[in-house]
């Protein structure tokens, strides 16, 4: 199973990508995925979204197709 990882704002520089696709299992957690694909990212203070919904860093992603790093937002 493939999952798309996204990194926004300054996390894209840390991750080295703003988007990439990796192999994953339904039991993978967002933390495991980013540890594998972007170990340089400091996840402290970041949220993570799975298929456009905020998600627990340590809960399995299931059949999701997109997992995104969400640094503190600052729209407006």
């Amino acid at each position, binding site marked *: 199973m493939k999952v798309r990882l996204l990194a*926004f704002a300054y996390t894209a520089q840390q991750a080295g990508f703003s988007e990439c696709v990796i192999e994953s299992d339904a039991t993978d957690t967002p933390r495991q995925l980013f540890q594998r694909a972007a170990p340089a990212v400091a996840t402290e203070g970041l949220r993570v*979204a799975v298929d*456009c919904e905020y998600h627990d860093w340590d809960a399995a992603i299931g059949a999701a197709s997109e997992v995104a790093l*969400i640094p503190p937002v*600052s729209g*407006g």
Partner: protein
Amino acid sequence: MTKSIEFSRARLVAPPMALPTLEIGACVEFYGIVRELEKGSLLKGLFYEAYETMAARQLERIFDSLRAAHPVQTVLFIHRLGWVPVGESSLFIRVLACHRGEALRFCGEAIDRMKADVPIWKVVAPSAR
């Protein structure tokens, strides 16, 4: 409630006002404008980035949940992305309601919640997306 959520790379222009019913008594419009001084540094502008699909979904949910407390008829939301020069608008929100209280509170709380939870970012140097 009619919701319109848009991200635009063009200069923001308020769309013509259309009243959904003749019961609308209040229209509140909010423009967020890029300031020259942001956290002590002098800017020429800001670069905005969004996770558009998620942002739209979160905004829809925020608007739906605010509607229970503040019944409004229409909400129109436009956030500009990319480079926005100082003095230009990065955000436009229009809320139409029967009464001003609802419209003003809806607008204020929608912005508060956007700033807390909606994946949109001001970035100093844009990432290569």
